[in-house]
């Protein structure tokens, strides 16, 4: 992931991001990997073992308590599936305009990770969608069922790169 | 399979001719003999001392001068009163006009046009009706639709319910006096009879919903039951002071008691309570919970289709006419108003006196005004919730009607108004 400076960001904005990075690194050290820092966006790659701990720290200590999005991205070349959480902040005025991005990189053949519902209740349906669209299994999810696709969907999860829409196989 | 429809003009003409052929066959082979047999056995009616045989009837139709003296006795006959005026035809016509007025008034309030185009292309005279033909089109549509009966339905009750509703609504109009002497059943306790007939509706609605054997109708039926029962009590209580003031249970007597002042001036709270409960009784917005479409589809009407649905709607609008007329009778002085219209005369024979014409006019205008106000209320209010409805019905409206009774009694006791007139 290359760092993309847009230039418009004022320097005091980036200090806020630096502060977040410093606090996370001080707490977790090597266990998390900083992917990039952009204006208002900080991404960490977190392993699935400490994801619950990380999320709880982000919610309780940093104030990132407002789940925005859960996205899965399939990388067949690296045999990885990224599950990317975008979390905003509603209570911490300092970090309010920032979005904390943390990704869990899972093995593409066996994508299992713990659910984050105990920490962010709002991710329930996002995780269900990720489950059906990319086949990621969230341990402990109460209703891991089909959401948008028909109940009798028998093909591979459609957002994986080896699934091709009819008529558009390339 | 061809994309062209089977419906061609020649087919259409053929079907019409075929239909005419069968009608001719049936009329000439079955209907005419039956009519003659009936005429043979049944004695011709005697009106005003003249025996009306078929030849005289034809003569009357072709030469009104002969028939003119017989018009008035015809109007006074019971059959005419029940069937035409002030009976079913008048009520149905009034209901039709109400439907049209409702659609147009709501449309005007909502910055729309409402029914406008129906028949405009086909008939030159449809322009002046301003979309009234839409009602005929709707009726034809309902007549042409299949009546679907759910498989698990209790069929006899399912079929009977719309008819019972129409009959009960028609029973109401028999009791309402539209002018002095112009009432079908002028009984001494007609007010009680009105409430007795109103009692039919919740039961029929519950039966209809239960017979539908479906979830939403069942919820709607229970809601209707709660609503109608809880609102019947304030409805009766609201009328109590009228009975006290007029000291009669006869609607004609109540109207005659209002010659000096209308009861709405003496008991406005009663009029308010009666109006609100009448809206609830009619299941109209804001009290249309039994049919709340965003919650329970169409309530107890869900499984009804085609003309069965049409009959229920007809019953509703006839009931709306009846309750508006009742409001007019009880609170707005019924037919009372200045006599200003000329009498109707046919070939120098008076058919309706000036007083009768004016009375009918005032009654119709007042009733229409009350109905129009119901329509405006519908246009400006949302639906209420069942718990709010029950709370308002059981606590506030009953309390208000008791206050109302006390006011009436106080008026009586203080001698402001006397008993009867």
């Amino acid at each position, binding site marked *: 992931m290359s760092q993309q400076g847009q230039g418009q960001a004022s320097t005091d904005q980036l200090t806020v991001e630096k502060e977040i990075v410093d606090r996370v690194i001080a707490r977790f050290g090597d266990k998390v990997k900083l992917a990039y820092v952009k204006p208002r966006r900080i991404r960490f790659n977190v392993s699935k073992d400490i994801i619950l701990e990380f999320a709880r720290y982000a919610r309780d200590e940093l104030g990132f308590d407002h789940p925005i999005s859960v996205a899965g991205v399939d990388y067949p070349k690296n045999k990885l599936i990224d599950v990317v959480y975008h979390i905003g902040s509603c209570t911490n005025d300092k970090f309010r305009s920032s979005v904390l991005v943390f990704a869990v990189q899972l093995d593409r053949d066996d994508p299992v990770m713990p659910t984050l519902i105990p920490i962010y209740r709002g991710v329930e349906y996002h995780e269900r969608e990720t489950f059906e669209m990319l086949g990621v299994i969230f341990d402990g999810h109460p209703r891991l069922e089909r959401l948008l696709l028909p109940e009798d969907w028998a093909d591979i999860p459609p957002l994986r790169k080896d699934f091709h829409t009819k008529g558009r196989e390339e | 399979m061809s994309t062209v429809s089977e419906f061609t003009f020649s087919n259409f003409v053929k079907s019409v001719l075929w239909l005419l052929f069968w009608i001719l066959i049936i009329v000439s082979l079955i209907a005419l003999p039956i009519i003659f047999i009936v005429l043979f056995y049944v004695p011709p009616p005697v009106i005003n001392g003249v025996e009306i045989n078929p030849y005289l009837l034809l003569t009357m139709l072709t030469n009104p001068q002969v028939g003119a003296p017989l018009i008035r006795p015809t109007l006074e006959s019971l059959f005419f009163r029940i069937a035409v005026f002030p009976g079913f035809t008048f009520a149905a016509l009034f209901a039709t006009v109400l439907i049209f007025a409702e659609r147009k008034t709501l449309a*005007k*309030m*909502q*910055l729309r046009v409402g029914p406008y185009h129906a028949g405009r292309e086909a008939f030159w005279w449809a322009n002046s009706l301003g979309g009234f033909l839409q009602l005929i089109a709707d009726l034809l549509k309902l007549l042409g639709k299949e009546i679907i009966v759910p498989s698990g339905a209790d069929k006899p009750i399912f079929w009977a319910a719309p008819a019972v509703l129409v009959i009960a609504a028609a029973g109401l109009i028999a009791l309402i006096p539209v002018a002095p002497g112009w009432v079908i059943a002028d009984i001494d306790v007609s007010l009680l009879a009105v409430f007795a007939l109103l009692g039919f509706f919740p039961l029929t609605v519950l039966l209809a919903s239960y017979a539908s054997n479906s979830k939403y109708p069942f919820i709607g039926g229970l809601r209707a039951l709660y609503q109608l029962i809880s609102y019947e009590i304030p409805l009766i209580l609201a009328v109590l002071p009228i009975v006290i003031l007029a000291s009669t249970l006869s609607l004609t007597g109540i109207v005659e008691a209002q010659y000096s002042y209308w009861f709405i001036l003496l008991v406005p709270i009663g009029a308010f309570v009666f109006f609100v409960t009448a809206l609830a009784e009619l299941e109209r917005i804001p009290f249309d919970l039994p049919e709340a479409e965003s919650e329970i589809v169409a309530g107890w009407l869900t499984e009804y289709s085609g003309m069965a649905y049409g009959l229920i709607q007809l019953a509703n609008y006839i009931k709306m006419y009846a309750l508006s007329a009742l409001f007019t009778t009880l609170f707005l002085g019924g037919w009372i108003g200045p006599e200003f219209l000329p009498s109707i005369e046919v070939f120098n024979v008076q058919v309706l006196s000036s007083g009768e014409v004016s009375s009918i006019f005032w009654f119709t205008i007042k009733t229409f005004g009350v109905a129009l106000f119901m329509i*405006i209320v519908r*246009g*400006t209010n949302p639906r209420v919730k069942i718990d709010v409805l029950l709370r308002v019905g059981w606590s506030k409206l009953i309390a208000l009607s008791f206050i109302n009774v006390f006011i009436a009694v106080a008026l009586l006791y203080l001698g402001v108004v006397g008993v009867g007139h």
Partner: protein
Amino acid sequence: MGSVSGMLRALASGSKHLAVKRFTLRYPEQKLKFVGDGYQFDPKEGVGIAGYRGRHILYHDKCTGCQLCSIACEGIAEAISMVKVDKQYKQNKKGIMPQIDYGKCVFCGLCVDACPFYALFMTDDYELAAYTKEHLIYTPDQLAVKPKYQGTYEIKIDELGAYHDE
């Protein structure tokens, strides 16, 4: 008492509107007026010219048969296909021109953006209803016809409310 006054105000507001002008546009008799002759695009500036996005108009003397409109449409609606036309044009050696299926077109106008030769624009004409799907397919000859759309009504605002009038 607050609820009573609220109810009365609602009734008054509703009754007041019995005197407000109707807003309805009586469509087949009245038609809306649009700005300009339809959406056009100036490839030199890279910016469009405002206008209604209705049916297309194709200028045969400018179309080169480059297929750019068809390629632009491929990922959107797949409504444009290139067909052979009878006449030969100097600038169009292959003699192919776009044919548009209005059963598929979404009227986004990105084909107009794609045309570098001022050949494909859009017009005010939106009355394209037809009895069969085949009638919705407009050949290059049909597309070359300039539509006779005449709408004159627009929204007027005065003290009695907004309404559609000439």
